[in-house]
C-alpha cells in the first residue's frame, strides 16, 4: 500500500509531463506458482477482466469487488500500482482482458511500446487505448530474442489514453473546437475502422485526413477533420454574382427600355411625318380649294356685274340707280378680293410660276404711273418715277408680276399719303452698293417734295444681297435691280411693323374701314419678290412716311445691253418718237431729286437736258450756249414763287435766244397751273401735267411744238405711228374661224400697212405656214372648231423643226428654203380671254406671245415689236 501511495503521488505530480494520458498503471508478471504468495502479500486476489467485458456495468455502480477472481492461468499480470484516477484497475489481471492480454504479450515480446485497439475503458466506459511498455528485470541487448525478453519481464507499465479527452484537449489548443469536427479512427483493420473519437456523422467529402502515429508501428490511426457546420456559403461570391446579376439585369433593362424608347420615338416620328404630310396635303388642298372656289366665284360674278351694268342702262330713278351702283361697286370689290385670294392661293399651292418674257421696265412703270396719276392729282400728291440709266432697256422676267408688286406698293402709299410725294426709284443693286451719288443725295431733306422721308437705306439694311459681297450674281446677263417706293404718308405704327407681311393683317380694324383693302397685298408682294429671287423690306416712321424697297433678279433682255447708254436712247427714241432726237432742253428746278426725275424722262425722248437751279443761271446758260435750246421746262414751284422773276425771264428769253425756245411748265395739278397761267398772262406757256412719263411728255411736246399733228389724236398715237413703221410691208397670216373677227383683225393690220392673208381654219394655216413661205408673222385664234390654235401651232412647230433638222443634216438644201436655215415664224395667239392660264398654255405649245381681241394698239405694238425691228 505504501508503494501504491508513492506511485500514485509520483504519477500525480508528474502528470503534467504526460498531458495526453489520463492515467498510468503498473502491473507485475506473476506466475501461477507465485500466485498464492503474491495474493497473500498484497492482500487481494487477482481478478479477471473478461466478465466485465461481457457484462458491462454502469460506471455509477462500479465496484471492483464485484470482479470475479481470476481463474487459474499460467501467469497473471495484476495491476499493483495505479494513478489515483484509475485506482479501480488495481488487482485486475491484464492478461484476462482480451485487448490487454494481446497488448501485454506484444509489448514484452518486442520490448517497445504497444497500443491496444480502442476499447471501452473500465468504469468510465469511455473509449480509450492503452500504451503498454514492458519492464524487464535486467537490460536486454537490442537483438535479444522474444523468449529472452519474456523471461526477463518483470512487469508492465500501461498508460491509458482517453481518446476523447485527448482529442478535446488537442482541439482546445487549436481553439477552433466549435468549428471543426474531428474523428479519430483506428484503421489497423482497413475494412473496419474503429471510431475512437467523434460522432459518426455522415461524411460529405470535405475532410482532411491525416495519419497519427502513436509510436506503435502495428497500429495505424488517422484523424479526419471537417467543419462542424456545413461549409459556409461563399457569401462574397454569392453577393458578387448576385450583384453582377442585378447589374446585368439593370443594364438589360436599360437596354430594353432604350430600345423600346427608340422604337417609340421612331414610331412617333413616323406618325409625325405622316401628320405633317397630311397637314401639308391639307394646306395644299386648302389652297387648291381656294383657287378653285375663287375661280368658280369669279365666273358667276362676271354675270352679276354684266347684268348690273345692263340694269344701269335701263330707266331707273335716282334711288334705284344708287342701289345698282352700290351693288356694282361691291361686286367689283369682291372680284378684286377674289383675284387677290386667288393669287395668294396660287402662290401657296405653288402653282404660280413666273413668266420669262422680254419686257420694258420703263414702259411698265409708265403704265403704273398713269394708273395712279388720277388719284395722285386728286390728292395733290406728287408722283414720280426715276430709273437709273444703268438699268437695261429690255429685261427678261415677268412684267405682270413685277407690275403687280409695284402697283401694290404704290397703291398702299397713295392710300396713306395725303400730302407730299410718292417717289419710285429703280437702280441696279451694284449701283446702290457702291455709288456715292445715291448716298450723298440722301444726306439732307433733299426729297422730291421737300417733305422729310424715311431713309430708304434703312429699308434694305437686312438684305442678304448687301451683307455678302459675293452674292451679286457674277453672270453678266443677270440683272439685279432694286426698287424703292418712298412716300410721305402717315407711316406704319411701330407695333404693327412686325406683321406687315402677314396675310390679312392690317394695322388695325379701323384701317380697313377707312381705307378698304384685304391686307393681303403685301403678303402677295413678298411672295412674288421671293419668286423673283429678291427680298423686300421697309422702313417706316410714323407721321413722316414709309419706304418699301425690294430687289428682283432679271436677265438682260438684249445681248447688247452692255452698251446700254447709246443703245438705250436710240431704242427709246425709236419706240417713243424720233422727232425730238438731238434737241436741247433746259430744266429750271432747284431741287436736284426732282430735276433728276425730269431729266430722266426728257432724256428718254432723246433730248439733251441741262438743269439749272434758278432764273439767273437759266438765262446765263441760254445766252452762253453754243447751240440753242429748243425748250425750257420750268418747275411750277419756281414759277409760283417768283412771278416777277418768271415774267422777267420770259421777256429776256425772247431777247437773248437765237430761236425762242418753247416754255413749258411742269405742274402737279392741272387746274391750279391753269389758273396761274392766266394770271401771269403769258400766252405761249404749255403746261405738262405730272407725273411725267415718256409718252405723255412726248404728246405734250409734240402738241406744243406744233410738229405735224398727224395720225389720230384720240388714243395711243405714238404706238400707232410706230406700229405702221413696224408692220409696213410685212406679210401676216391671220387665222380665225369667226369671219367678223377675221375681217376686223385683217382691217386693223392692213391699216398699219401689213400685207394680210386670212385663213379660217387651222388646217389652212398649217398648209400656208409649212416652209418655205414668206410670212413674217401669224396671228392665231385659239378657240376654233376642228383644230384649235394650240394644236395648229404645235403642228406648225413640228413641221418647222423637222425641216430645220433636215436642212441641218444637209438632206434639204438651204437654197430651196429661201436661204433660211432656222425656220420659226412668230405666232401670236389672239384671244378674248385674258387669263393667265391661257397665256401659259400659249407659250407651252410654242406660241411667241399673245394679243387680246379686239386689237389694242399699244399691246399689239408691244408684242409685235419683239419680232420686227
Amino acid at each position, binding site marked *: 500500500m505504501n508503494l501504491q501511495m508513492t506511485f500514485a503521488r509520483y504519477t500525480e505530480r508528474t502528470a503534467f509531463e504526460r498531458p495526453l494520458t489520463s492515467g498510468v498503471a503498473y502491473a507485475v508478471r506473476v506466475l501461477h506458482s507465485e500466485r498464492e504468495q503474491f495474493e497473500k502479500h498484497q492482500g487481494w486476489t487477482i481478478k479477471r477482466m473478461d466478465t466485465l467485458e461481457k457484462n458491462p456495468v454502469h460506471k455509477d455502480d462500479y465496484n471492483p469487488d464485484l470482479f470475479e477472481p481470476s481463474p487459474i492461468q499460467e501467469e497473471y499480470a495484476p495491476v499493483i500500482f495505479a494513478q489515483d484516477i484509475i485506482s479501480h484497475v488495481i488487482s485486475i489481471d491484464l492478461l484476462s482482458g482480451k485487448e490487454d492480454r494481446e497488448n501485454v504479450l506484444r509489448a514484452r515480446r518486442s520490448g517497445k511500446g504497444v497500443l491496444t485497439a480502442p476499447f471501452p475503458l473500465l468504469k468510465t466506459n469511455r473509449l480509450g487505448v492503452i500504451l503498454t511498455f514492458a519492464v524487464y528485470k535486467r537490460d536486454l541487448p537490442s537483438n535479444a530474442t522474444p523468449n529472452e525478453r519474456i523471461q526477463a519481464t518483470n512487469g508492465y507499465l500501461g498508460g491509458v489514453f482517453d481518446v476523447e479527452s485527448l482529442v478535446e484537449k488537442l482541439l482546445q489548443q487549436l481553439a477552433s473546437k466549435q468549428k471543426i469536427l474531428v474523428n479519430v479512427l483506428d484503421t489497423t483493420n482497413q475494412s473496419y475502422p474503429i471510431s475512437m473519437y467523434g460522432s459518426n456523422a455522415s461524411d460529405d467529402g470535405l475532410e482532411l485526413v491525416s495519419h497519427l502515429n502513436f509510436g506503435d508501428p502495428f497500429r495505424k490511426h488517422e484523424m479526419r477533420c471537417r467543419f462542424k457546420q456545413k461549409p459556409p456559403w461563399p457569401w462574397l461570391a454569392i453577393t458578387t454574382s448576385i450583384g453582377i446579376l442585378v447589374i446585368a439585369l439593370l443594364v438589360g433593362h436599360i437596354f430594353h427600355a432604350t430600345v423600346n424608347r427608340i422604337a417609340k420615338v421612331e414610331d412617333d416620328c413616323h406618325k409625325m411625318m405622316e401628320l405633317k404630310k397630311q397637314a401639308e396635303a391639307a394646306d395644299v388642298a386648302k389652297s387648291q380649294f381656294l383657287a378653285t372656289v375663287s375661280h368658280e366665284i369669279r*365666273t*358667276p360674278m*362676271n*354675270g352679276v356685274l*354684266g*347684268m348690273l*351694268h*345692263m340694269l344701269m*342702262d335701263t330707266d331707273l330713278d335716282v334711288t334705284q340707280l344708287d342701289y345698282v351702283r352700290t351693288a356694282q361697286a361691291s361686286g367689283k370689290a369682291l372680284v378684286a378680293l377674289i383675284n387677290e385670294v386667288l393669287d395668294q392661293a396660287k402662290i401657296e399651292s405653288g402653282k404660280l410660276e413666273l413668266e420669262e418674257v422680254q419686257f420694258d421696265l420703263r414702259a411698265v412703270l409708265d403704265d403704273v404711273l398713269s394708273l395712279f396719276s388720277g388719284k395722285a392729282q386728286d390728292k395733290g400728291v406728287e408722283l414720280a418715277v426715276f430709273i437709273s440709266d444703268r438699268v437695261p432697256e429690255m429685261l427678261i422676267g415677268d412684267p405682270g408680276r413685277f407690275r403687280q408688286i409695284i402697283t401694290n406698293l404704290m397703291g398702299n402709299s397713295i392710300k396713306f399719303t395725303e400730302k407730299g410725294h410718292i417717289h419710285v426709284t429703280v437702280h441696279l443693286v451694284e449701283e446702290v452698293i457702291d455709288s456715292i451719288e445715291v448716298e450723298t443725295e440722301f444726306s439732307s431733306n433733299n426729297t422730291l417734295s421737300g417733305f422729310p422721308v424715311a431713309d430708304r437705306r434703312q429699308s434694305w439694311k437686312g438684305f442678304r444681297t448687301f451683307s455678302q459681297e459675293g452674292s451679286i450674281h457674277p453672270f453678266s446677263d443677270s440683272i439685279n435691280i432694286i426698287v424703292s417706293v418712298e412716300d410721305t404718308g402717315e407711316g406704319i405704327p411701330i407695333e404693327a411693323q412686325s406683321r406687315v407681311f402677314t396675310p390679312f393683317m392690317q394695322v388695325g380694324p379701323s384701317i380697313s374701314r377707312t381705307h378698304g383693302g384685304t391686307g393681303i397685298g403685301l403678303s402677295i408682294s413678298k411672295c412674288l419678290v421671293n419668286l423673283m429671287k429678291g427680298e423686300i423690306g421697309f422702313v417706316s416712321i410714323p407721321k413722316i412716311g414709309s419706304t418699301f424697297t425690294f430687289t428682283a433678279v432679271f436677265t438682260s433682255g438684249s445681248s447688247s445691253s452692255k452698251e446700254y447708254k447709246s443703245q438705250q436712247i436710240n431704242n427709246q427714241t425709236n419706240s417713243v418718237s424720233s422727232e425730238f432726237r438731238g434737241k436741247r432742253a433746259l430744266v429750271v428746278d432747284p431741287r436736284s431729286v426732282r430735276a433728276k426725275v425730269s431729266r430722266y424722262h426728257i432724256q428718254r425722248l432723246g433730248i439733251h437736258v441741262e438743269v439749272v437751279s434758278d432764273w439767273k443761271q437759266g438765262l446765263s446758260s441760254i445766252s452762253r450756249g453754243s447751240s440753242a435750246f429748243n425748250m425750257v421746262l420750268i418747275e411750277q414751284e419756281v414759277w409760283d414763287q417768283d412771278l416777277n422773276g418768271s415774267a422777267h425771264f420770259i421777256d429776256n428769253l425772247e431777247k437773248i435766244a437765237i430761236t425762242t425756245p418753247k416754255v413749258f411748265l411742269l405742274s402737279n395739278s392741272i387746274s391750279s397751273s391753269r389758273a396761274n397761267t392766266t394770271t401771269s398772262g403769258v400766252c405761249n406757256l404749255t403746261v405738262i401735267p405730272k407725273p411725267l412719263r415718256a409718252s405723255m411728255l412726248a404728246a405734250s411736246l409734240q402738241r406744243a411744238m406744233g410738229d405735224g399733228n398727224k395720225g*389720230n389724236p*384720240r388714243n395711243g398715237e405714238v404706238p400707232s405711228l410706230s406700229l405702221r413703221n413696224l408692220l409696213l410691208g410685212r406679210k401676216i397670216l391671220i387665222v380665225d*374661224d*369667226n*369671219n*367678223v*373677227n377675221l*375681217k*376686223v*383683225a385683217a*382691217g*386693223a393690220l*392692213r*391699216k398699219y400697212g401689213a400685207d394680210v392673208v386670212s385663213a379660217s381654219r387651222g388646217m389652212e394655216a398649217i398648209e400656208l405656214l409649212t416652209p418655205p413661205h414668206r410670212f413674217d408673222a401669224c396671228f392665231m385664234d385659239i*378657240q376654233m*372648231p376642228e383644230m384649235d390654235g394650240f394644236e395648229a401651232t404645235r403642228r406648225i412647230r413640228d413641221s418647222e423643226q423637222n425641216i430645220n433638222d433636215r436642212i441641218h443634216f444637209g438632206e434639204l438644201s438651204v437654197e430651196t428654203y429661201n436661204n433660211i436655215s432656222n425656220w420659226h415664224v412668230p405666232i401670236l395667239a389672239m384671244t*378674248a380671254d385674258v387669263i393667265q392660264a391661257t397665256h401659259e398654255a400659249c407659250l407651252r405649245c410654242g406660241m411667241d406671245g399673245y394679243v387680246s*381681241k*379686239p*386689237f389694242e394698239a399699244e399691246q399689239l405694238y408691244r408684242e409685235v415689236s419683239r419680232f420686227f425691228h
Partner: protein
Amino acid sequence: MLGSGADRLRADVNRLLAFLFHQGILDEQFLQLQQLQDESSPNFVSQVVNIYFQESEKLLRNLRSLLMERKLSDYKNIGIHINQLMGSSSSIGAKRVRNVCVAFRAASDQNNRTGCLRVLEVLEHDYCFLKNKLHELFQIEQQRILAGGVGYPMQN
C-alpha cells in the same frame, strides 16, 4: 344746198352714234372699226357689219334650236356658239350684245336652261335693236355719201 344737207346728215349720224354710245349699245371698238375704213376700203365698216349680221343670225338660230331641244341640251355646243357671238360682237364694238353674251355664258356654264332661254330672249331683242340702229346708221351714211361724198364724220 348740198353742203348743208350733208352737214345735216352728218349731224344725224353723230346724234345717232351718241345715242348708241350713251345707251351702251356700242363702244369705242366701233370707232376703231370706222378708223380702219379709208380710201382703199371705202365700205369696210358696212362689209364687216354685214358679215356680223349673217354670222350672228345663224348663231342665234342655232342657239334657239339647241335650247328648244326636248332632251338634255348640248351646253358645250351652246358655249362654242356664245363664244363666237361674243368674239364677233366685241370685234365690232357691239357692247350690249357682248355683255348679254357674258350673262348667257354664265347661265350655260351652270347648265341653267331657263336662265339660258331668258337671256336668249334678251339677246335676240338686243340684237334686233342693234341691227335696226346700224341699218339706220348706214342708211344715213349712204345718203350722206351720195349728198356730199366727203370724209368720214369721225375723221375730224
